């Protein structure tokens, strides 16, 4: 079972719909036991960083997430990816989960439209099991105004929007993050979710 953490953030149903469509058992949950029992965890998210950290704090799940992300496949989506980093400067400096080194700050491109919204092309930086079966010309759907700043070793794919925008990050083990929405990225996004879900079965 894949636990989709429900801490009041938007768009969790589309993640669930995508996993249902792919035929992977999943559960929307805010319970510690479900997260501990799960074969893999997805942390979705739409909204502002401080608000999301606050909601996660109130749910009492932060320690569970930090501990479980080290022993089973974990995928943060959009804001859920940004929460993996050490801190963010959205509105105010705010501590993140600190599972991957780096921080989150505004996309600073005065000549470009912010939010970065639409289909952009993945540029691969390191091999990653999430990319199994993908071609060279894959587009995914982004909606965000802040981006991650991290070491090259954690940057698995990016896209070009003025400068490099981290698209897929990982600690090189079980922790993954997608800045884009795989659940809204057509066939490419479903393939990425399927690759993630399969990883959970291999670990099991």
């Amino acid at each position: 079972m894949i636990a989709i953490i429900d801490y009041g953030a938007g768009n969790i149903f589309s993640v669930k719909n995508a996993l249902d469509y792919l035929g992977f058992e999943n559960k929307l949950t805010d319970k510690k036991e479900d997260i501990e029992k799960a074969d893999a965890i997805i942390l979705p998210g739409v909204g502002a960083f401080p608000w999301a950290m606050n909601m996660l704090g109130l749910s009492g799940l932060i320690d569970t997430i930090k501990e479980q992300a080290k022993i089973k496949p974990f995928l943060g989506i959009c804001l859920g990816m940004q929460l993996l980093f050490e801190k963010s400067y959205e509105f105010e400096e705010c501590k993140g989960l600190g599972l991957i080194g780096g921080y989150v700050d505004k996309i600073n491109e005065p000549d470009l439209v912010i939010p970065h919204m639409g289909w952009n092309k993945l540029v691969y930086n390191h091999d990653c099991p999430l990319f199994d079966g993908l071609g060279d010309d894959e587009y995914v759907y982004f909606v965000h105004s802040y981006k991650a700043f991290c070491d090259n070793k954690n940057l698995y794919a990016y896209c070009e929007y003025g400068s490099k925008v981290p698209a897929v990050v990982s600690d090189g083990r079980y922790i993954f993050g997608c800045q884009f929405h795989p659940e809204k990225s057509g066939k490419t996004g479903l393939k990425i979710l399927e690759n993630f879900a399969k990883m959970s079965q291999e670990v099991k």
Partner: protein
Amino acid sequence: MLAKRIIPCLDVRDGKVVKGVNFEGIKEVGDPVECAYEYNLQGADEIVFYDITASHEGRGVMLDVVRETAKKVFVPLTVGGGIKTVDDIRDTLRAGADKVSVNSQAVQNPQLIKDGADIFGCQCICVGVDAKKVGDNKWTVYINGGRVDMRMDLIDWVKKCEQLGAGEICLNSIDTDGVRGGFDLPMLKAVCSAVKIPVIASGGAGKLSDFADAFLETDCSAALAASLFHFKELTVQQVKDDCRSKGIIVR
């Protein structure tokens, strides 16, 4: 670089896809969930449902359509038509839409754009604008499906929408809509240079090259069409192949 988007639009009334010419002469053409799924297979970058249901009960039917579509279509969904309040926006997004499109209601109550953008984020507020030419490089905004002239300057209005927090503008030309002679390029150019937010071209696509022409001659981010795709005269894939062969970046 963002890919240019091709967006099929489905006009829905009481849960059925319908199609009219010049806003009139409506006929039924199919099941919206099936149509959306078919467009998804063709490579649509986004799908728009435009709800033309008049009754309040019909709104629930529309939300069911969105809910069912979201179970099998994994590209962004936009719902327009009949969205009057922040609660309507919330219900529509909760049903599985990624964006809402507000039109007449935004003209009558511009605060709806601001409230929607403040609460849900500007990325999910698209403002649909119907406009008609009144002189050289001058257009006015219409509401109620192109029936009522608000005598309001188009350029002033789109700038105001941007200021209020609109995430994008879907620009429909009443002059070219249903005529199938191509998008209204002068109007598109004028709006694209007035705002920074993405502009979707709507109204007038009649042949394959109309889409590439809009992308090559204006800065629009997306092009939307309804009947051309409904009646299977063109597929989304054919449009994209044509754009790609002309050097336009598409998914």
